[in-house]
């Protein structure tokens, strides 16, 4: 099925590859992906150090045991030494074994602590780029606080993403190189965790709290990661794609993003009567990205967690109740409030789409002003 498969079959047999697996082998998926920040490189070194020490200790343990198995066995006529534990070795080993282990432990701990100090404390620095990261069931939201740009990033479907399925998103997180970035993680529903190996951090997003991390990317490129904290049904479908670009390109990108946002807001604010087909077209795209992960493209939901919208009492009953649940969500269930995430036009389009699809035929064309009134 996959050509890579054959290549690495022979590799697992060679445990010592663990030690020699330098970045060159990363393409085989044997070790960390190539780091893109100084700290991620430091982390990689700490990882190689502890792994090296562990491998040596393991070789030691295996060596001694295998030698003992070969030498001290009854079938070779070896007589047991009943007093071995009473020799000086037996009397004092409880002191010197711990002393040796303590020495190794302190070696590991001290080199780890150095990296930890850099990794853990976000530097107080001018020109920090503040990015607020919000985990949602099941997509990421990134806000550039000073630039006032907000993007939502969702997994691409299998058809769109191809080989990159579950590692690719519709809107990438674009970040500048050479500038320290502070990430502030939080969540809108349950715990998530942002993890992009190349950036050298993983941090939990805890609803109601902010946790902080930072990174300074030094190489342009595309870095992929995934949500690392179990967050329910589609935990597997929360990739993160970071695109590191030059600071100039980043400024351009911010301007483009702001312009697009402004255009969308203007469209929503315009007090015009929207026709049904137009709303349906808009609503379909929005529904398929924002709602279909739960209620499914075909509107049939996923029993028992997610109710169908097809033939549902709410989606075929009075529009007011329908708008209400979309705006405010349903506390205690996975249905989130969309108030803060979608503008009036978007909600009107989605609701319209839901009321006229999959056999639902209310014929309603819900208008942005209806939504505005319900807010």
């Amino acid at each position, binding site marked *: 099925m996959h050509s890579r498969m054959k290549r690495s079959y022979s590799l697992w047999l060679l445990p010592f590859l663990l030690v020699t697996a330098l970045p060159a082998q990363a393409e085989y998926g044997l070790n960390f992906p190539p780091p893109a920040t100084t700290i991620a490189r430091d982390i990689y070194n700490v990882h190689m150090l502890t792994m090296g020490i562990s491998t040596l200790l393991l070789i030691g343990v295996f060596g001694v045991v295998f030698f003992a198995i070969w030498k001290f066995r009854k079938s070779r006529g070896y007589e047991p030494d009943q007093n071995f534990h009473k020799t000086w070795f037996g009397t004092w080993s409880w002191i010197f074994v711990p002393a040796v282990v303590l020495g190794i432990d302190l070696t590991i701990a001290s080199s780890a602590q150095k990296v930890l100090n850099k990794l853990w*404390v*976000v530097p107080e620095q001018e020109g920090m780029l503040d990015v*607020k990261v919000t985990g949602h069931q099941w997509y990421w939201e990134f806000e550039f606080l000073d630039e006032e740009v907000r993007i939502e990033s969702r997994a691409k479907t299998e058809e769109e993403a191809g080989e990159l399925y579950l590692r690719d998103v519709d809107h990438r997180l674009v970040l500048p190189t050479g500038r320290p970035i502070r990430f*502030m993680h*939080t969540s809108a529903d349950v715990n998530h965790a942002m993890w992009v190996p190349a950036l050298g951090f993983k941090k939990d997003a805890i609803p*109601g*709290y*902010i946790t*902080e991390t930072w990174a300074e990317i030094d190489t342009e490129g595309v870095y992929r990661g995934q949500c690392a904290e179990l967050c329910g049904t589609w935990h597997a479908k929360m990739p993160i794609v970071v695109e590191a670009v030059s600071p100039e390109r980043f400024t351009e990108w911010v301007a483009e993003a702001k312009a697009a946002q402004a255009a969308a807001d203007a469209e929503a604010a315009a007090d015009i009567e929207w026709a049904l087909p137009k709303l349906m077209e808009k609503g379909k795209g929005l529904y398929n990205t924002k709602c279909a992960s739960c209620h499914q493209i075909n509107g049939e939901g996923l029993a028992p967690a997610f109710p169908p919208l097809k033939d549902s009492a709410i989606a075929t009953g009075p529009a007011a109740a329908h708008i209400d649940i979309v705006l405010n969500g349903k506390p205690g269930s996975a249905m989130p409030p969309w108030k803060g995430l979608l503008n009036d036009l978007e909600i009107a389009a989605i609701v319209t789409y839901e009321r006229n699809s999959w056999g639902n035929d209310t014929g309603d064309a819900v208008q942005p002003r209806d939504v505005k009134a319900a807010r």
Partner: protein
Amino acid sequence: MSQHNDTPSSHYFVPEPSPWPFIAMFAMFALLAGTALIINDIGFGNVLVTLGALLLTYMLYGWFRDVVGENLSGQYNHQVDRSFRQGMYWFIASEVFFFASFFGALYYIRNIAVPWLGGAGYLGTSALLYSQFTGDWPTAGPGDLGGDLTPMGAWGIPALNTMLLLSSGATLTWAHWGLKLNNQKTLVRGLIATITLGLLFVGFQAYEYQHAFAELNLTLASGVYGSTFYILTGFHGMHVTLGAIMLIAILGRSMKGHFSPRNHFAFEAVAWYWHFVDVVWLGLFIFVYMV
């Protein structure tokens, strides 16, 4: 020891097969499965709970009847007695740790979670999420869940309850003292006094809850202050109630003259339990009401 293994009291007593543990399985299952159904509004839950509770009572009654019978017929030697005592110590130790989880939660919330929400530490939680929230205690959280509340003061009923429980500890010791001197009257009187004080405590606590709900708007849903307040005092109150029931059983046995100055493990076990409940209350009084 092995020389005189013909005298029954030197032989470690191993009971005959007993149905009670097996029955306990059904009782506990019915009780808990029923509770799970009830809290999810599923009808036949209460049938199961009733069944389970009845079975549990029957089981406990039968089990203790067997134990009392064996004790009275002199089948327990000194070593068996020691097993019972040590068993009770470690049971109480596990209860202490159960309460420790709630005290630990209170500590964590007051010293870490709420200050963090209020903007302490190196993280920008309050700056980005709740600019209004200051993180004072008591609190119903940044969302002010459950609306405005008045915290429970320490010097009304809680102080009175402290007095009640402390004196009940004293009366229990008095009863024990009577038992040791083989003075049945003191024993019974001391027990009755202890039980009365314990029940008074429970009564006042119930009144306090009612007051809190009705007048202070302090409920289980009053944010984290209400949560910790009720979980700690609630589980404590439950233990006082259980302790009182156990004392009543001991009172019954005392009146029947089951205890002798040298053989009264059951009395002591209940007394330890009562003192444990007492000490937990002191912790509550200090950390929930006063500080």
